[in-house]
């Protein structure tokens, strides 16, 4: 008996040591990784006519992919895709985004007129969809190809932009950007909603901890916000926790290993799509002009913009927790929501978060890293109450100015 106990203790010790070494290599020790070095660009047809494209437009003639004449460019030669260009010489130019369609405009008016609640055509009885709802028609939500009757966002959202910078305690507006942050208290629930309008999609950026792509790099959201002159910042998808998933940041494709997790893609034309991992194609992402892509999820609204009531995950994940999520109304109009939890605020379940985005009027919404990671920074201050004091993250979503204003 003594021998068995001794052997078991020995094995426990060995397992502990192995786990420690595993953890060190898996995500503790900073390890710089190679990106795919592919710089995406806005396809010519996805921007308003006469407007310059928000894109990394190389100074040299870009090469094309698979014979298409789209302006797909790359930062460096990659043997796998045969894409080449020079990202170092890329120059960013601001654009005027276009809204997608009349249908999306309806979403905007619904939100702006009533603030909360659905429009009269809202189909509240047609929900109860599971996570597979996206698989049925992944392109329906925030389809970036709908540009037929587009209206320049500069005109559409002109009420939200200002000629000069106007900063108040909870809002900011400039010619390119408008942000309004609201603290909401509903019973035992506290959450923060940042209502965002951008004229120039390059204002919607992501930051990497230590400005380096890899695993084990972590910074506080405040630090990333300050270093990048962010007006608003929230935590991202904590891409550094795993080597799987799709990572596109500020137009650079770092990783394209889709998993079964839903993927959220924000395009140069301002549209946002949430799709199952199985539907993601890097070639399509490049062709459509992916500006950002996150892998966490799940999708919080189905392909028709209806709330999801059944999520295929463990109870622990679905239950009330602090959350961070991004919502999409139409090109140029987004919201970021951070929900406090595990304290005075109870946190929110995934179905309730889905309902929240539905009530906000979003047509697509996507869950990002939550728990202790859920942090919202306004200026250089954390405005929510992060669970456990918050934790450092490998990336952050930022709203920042790309042009200098007095």
């Amino acid at each position: 008996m003594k021998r068995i106990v001794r052997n078991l203790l020995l094995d426990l010790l060995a397992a502990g040591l192995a786990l420690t070494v595993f953890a060190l290599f898996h995500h503790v020790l900073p390890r710089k990784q190679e990106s795919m070095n592919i710089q995406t660009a806005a396809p010519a047809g996805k921007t308003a006519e006469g407007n310059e494209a928000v894109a990394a437009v190389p100074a040299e003639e870009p090469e094309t992919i698979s014979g298409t004449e789209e302006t797909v460019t790359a930062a460096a030669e990659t043997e796998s895709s045969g894409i080449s260009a020079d990202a170092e010489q890329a120059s960013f130019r601001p654009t005027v985004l276009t809204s997608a369609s009349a249908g999306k405009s309806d979403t905007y008016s619904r939100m702006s007129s009533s603030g909360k609640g659905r429009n009269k055509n809202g189909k509240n009885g047609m929900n109860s969809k599971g996570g597979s709802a996206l698989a049925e028609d992944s392109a329906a939500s925030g389809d970036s190809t709908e540009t037929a009757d587009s209206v320049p966002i500069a005109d559409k959202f002109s009420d939200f932009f200002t000629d000069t910078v106007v900063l108040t305690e909870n809002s900011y507006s400039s010619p390119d950007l408008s942000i309004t942050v609201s603290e909401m208290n509903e019973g035992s629930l506290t959450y923060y909603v940042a209502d965002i309008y951008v004229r120039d999609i390059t204002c919607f950026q992501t930051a990497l901890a230590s400005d380096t792509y890899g695993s084990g790099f972590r910074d506080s959201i405040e630090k990333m916000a300050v270093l990048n002159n962010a007006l608003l910042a929230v935590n991202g998808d904590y891409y550094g926790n795993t080597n799987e998933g799709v990572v596109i940041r500020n137009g650079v494709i770092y990783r394209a290993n889709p998993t079964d997790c839903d993927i959220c893609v924000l395009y140069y034309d301002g549209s946002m799509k949430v799709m199952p991992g199985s539907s993601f194609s890097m070639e399509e992402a490049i062709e459509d002009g992916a500006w950002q892509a996150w892998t966490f999820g799940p999708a919080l609204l189905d392909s028709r913009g209806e709330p999801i009531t059944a999520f295929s995950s463990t109870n622990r994940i679905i239950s009330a927790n602090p959350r961070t999520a991004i919502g999409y109304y139409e090109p140029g109009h987004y919201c970021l929501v951070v929900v406090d939890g595990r304290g005075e605020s109870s946190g929110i379940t995934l179905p309730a978060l889905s309902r929240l985005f539905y009530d906000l009027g979003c047509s697509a919404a996507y869950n990002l890293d939550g728990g202790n990671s859920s942090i919202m920074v306004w200026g250089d201050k954390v405005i929510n109450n992060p669970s456990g004091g918050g934790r450092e993250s490998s990336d952050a979503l930022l709203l920042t100015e790309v042009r200098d204003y007095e």
Partner: protein
Amino acid sequence: MSKVRGFLNHLSTAFGIIFLVFLVLDQFNPMMNFVDNTISRWMLAAFCFSGICRSILSWSKNEQ
């Protein structure tokens, strides 16, 4: 041979503990991908290999 058998016993037990820990962690945070990453897959292969070897040695011992 008994030393090899003993080593395989330890190996299997340690890997068993490790994978139990992975499964528990996976319940808390599946996004960290403890179960299905490259290192885990190699460890799983080693776990299987040690288990099979142990069984073969055990059977051969029983034969004797």
